[in-house]
């Protein structure tokens, strides 16, 4: 029910460390108290659990930005997410 709140929380955390957003102490001082997160969402965010955030439905563009900001190399987060990959049966019209 609070998936939006998780998105907002992650987004705000990413933004607080970006250009022109350092006022207020940056990411180290970031406080999740104001976000209405479920216990699972709060645990995922606070433990920087990329797999859990993916499983919970965090938007992939935001997940990518989060991973970069949190220091996960792309190859590393791919390894974390690979178990959740689903083989694709459909084919696009460009595929021979």
């Amino acid at each position, binding site marked *: 029910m609070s998936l939006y709140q998780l998105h907002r929380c992650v987004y705000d955390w990413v933004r607080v460390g970006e250009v*022109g957003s350092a006022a207020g102490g940056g990411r180290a001082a970031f406080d999740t108290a104001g976000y209405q997160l479920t216990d699972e969402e709060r645990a995922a965010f606070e433990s920087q659990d990329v797999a859990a955030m993916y499983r919970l439905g965090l938007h*992939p563009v935001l997940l*990518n930005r989060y991973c970069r900001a949190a220091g996960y190399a792309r190859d590393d987060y791919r390894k974390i997410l690979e178990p959740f990959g689903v083989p694709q049966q459909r084919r696009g*019209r*460009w595929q021979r």
Partner: protein
Amino acid sequence: MAEIVLAYCSSHAPMMSSARMAAPEEQRNNFFAALDQLRDEAAARGVQVCVVLSNEHFTNFFLENFPQICIGVGERNWGPTEEWLPIEKVWIPGHPGLATHIAEHTLASGFDPAFSHQLELDHGIMTVYHELDPRMTLPLVPIVQNCAVPPLMPVRRAYEFGRAVGDAIRSYPGQTRVAVIGAGGLSHWIGTPRVGDIDEEFDRWFLGRLERGELEQVLDMPDSEIELAGNGSHEIRSWVAVAGAVEPVRAHTLAYEPIHPWITGMAVAHWETPR
């Protein structure tokens, strides 16, 4: 009236700036040679302002309010947002006259673009703009598209919006010489288990359609099918918009390199408009 004297599209993977040397030398040289050629063309054709269509990456908009299109009508815009992108952070001049005319004209043509008097520009626009003008003084009209957060504008409508943008530019009073540029794509995956994959077959199919002017199958593709070539492939909306802006001119591919260290099918295509 204003003229579109240059039209092209380029991929905009941020690593083209932040990890330039990570790409294999031959691929890197081919890709940047195409952008170098277009920079020279812009100078030779006396480009005075560029209109750049690219996509939103949660830089200006978030889930509370996510426009399908936003036109930057302000006197200046800031960029790049990303602290790690090795491009100087500067105020980039806008072109309020042309931008407002595009907004008015597209509104009168049945579109409902949002507008902004100050946008933050991320790698989506800044990488390609910086290659065009490293001094970053060329006036820029940014047009931000939603290519990531469903529901998305259908691809056909993005093409039709591009037609309206082209008509708007050509009806702008004065002798302004305009470049129309699309920045984004081609195939890539972001934030998913397939991050790092590239669908070379899709990229070559798409570029072939642009070259032959056979866009019908592209314009009819549902998002669920585009997604098969990666969630970043929705950024082809910027490319089809440029194709619409200069129709019936066909594209010519200047470079295509599936650059795995940059996790993206990196392409540059040029539409030969009148000089």
